[in-house]
């Protein structure tokens, strides 16, 4: 697996750490992990940095995950970067909405490292 840079977006710093650990347990070779507490912060991070993978919560203050994915289309640094949603919102309509906004995967909390592996590795394989 090639080395990648990931951006993890969640308003919980604990959850950001858990997602990072799960990525490593899933065998993702992380060279750099950037973090943001909401969609607006994430857009600011992406103005300065390039990443290979984005994992994003939905329910966040200031800018939620769905709005972030919509606005991501206008960020030149993020063209083609896969986004996987990781969220407690598990309804079909949320999944459809996220995927129609441009997300490439969807993981429901609570989750295991195996579920992260199952949903993240395929989108990285497509990208590479």
């Amino acid at each position, binding site marked *: 697996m090639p080395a990648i840079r990931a951006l993890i977006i969640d*308003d*919980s*710093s*604990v*959850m950001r*750490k*858990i997602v990072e*650990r799960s990525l490593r347990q899933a065998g993702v070779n992380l060279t750099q992990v950037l973090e943001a507490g909401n969609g607006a912060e994430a857009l600011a991070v992406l103005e300065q940095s390039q990443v290979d993978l984005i994992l994003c919560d939905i*329910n*966040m*203050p200031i800018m939620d995950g769905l709005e972030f994915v919509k606005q991501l289309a206008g960020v030149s640094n993020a063209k083609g970067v896969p986004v996987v949603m990781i*969220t*407690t*919102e*598990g*309804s*079909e*309509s*949320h999944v459809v909405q996220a995927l129609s906004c441009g997300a490439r995967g969807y993981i*429901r*909390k*609570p*989750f*295991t490292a195996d579920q992260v592996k199952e949903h993240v590795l395929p989108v990285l394989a497509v990208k590479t």
Partner: protein
Amino acid sequence: MKSANDILAVSKEHADWIPLLEISVREVFELMLGCQLKHLEATPEQGLDITSMVGLAGQLCGVLSVRSSKESAALMAYKMLGAETDANSQEVRDAFGEICNMVAGNFKNKISGLGEGCMLSVPTVVTGNDYSLHSLTDSPPLEVRLQFEDRPLIISLEVS
């Protein structure tokens, strides 16, 4: 699986949601903390000095709360993060709030048709035990009493 409207129409008391609530809690602890919970017979009078709450709004309105001791919450954070954390730290409160958030999300996802009709607030965490929680709901609270590492863990759902 019954739809949310079916369940709301059949049971005003929502007592049939208790097993769903308990499964929701158990799944969060098994998947995110790697531990099994045991039953607890009675709610202890003292020692529950941290509470996390998530509000529900929409088709289902109310509050879901999780109560334990701060020491238990620190142990939960340790199991989630793999690193020891002071019981009074922001990290422990964050972890405890996320547990409540995941329980609430997992619970509503188990009721067919409710997911998109019920929104969750961000978690609120209260420390200390000299307070009373008054939810403006018209049903008695549903309570699940469990033990996390032999320490009490009380989950309450008050819905209208």
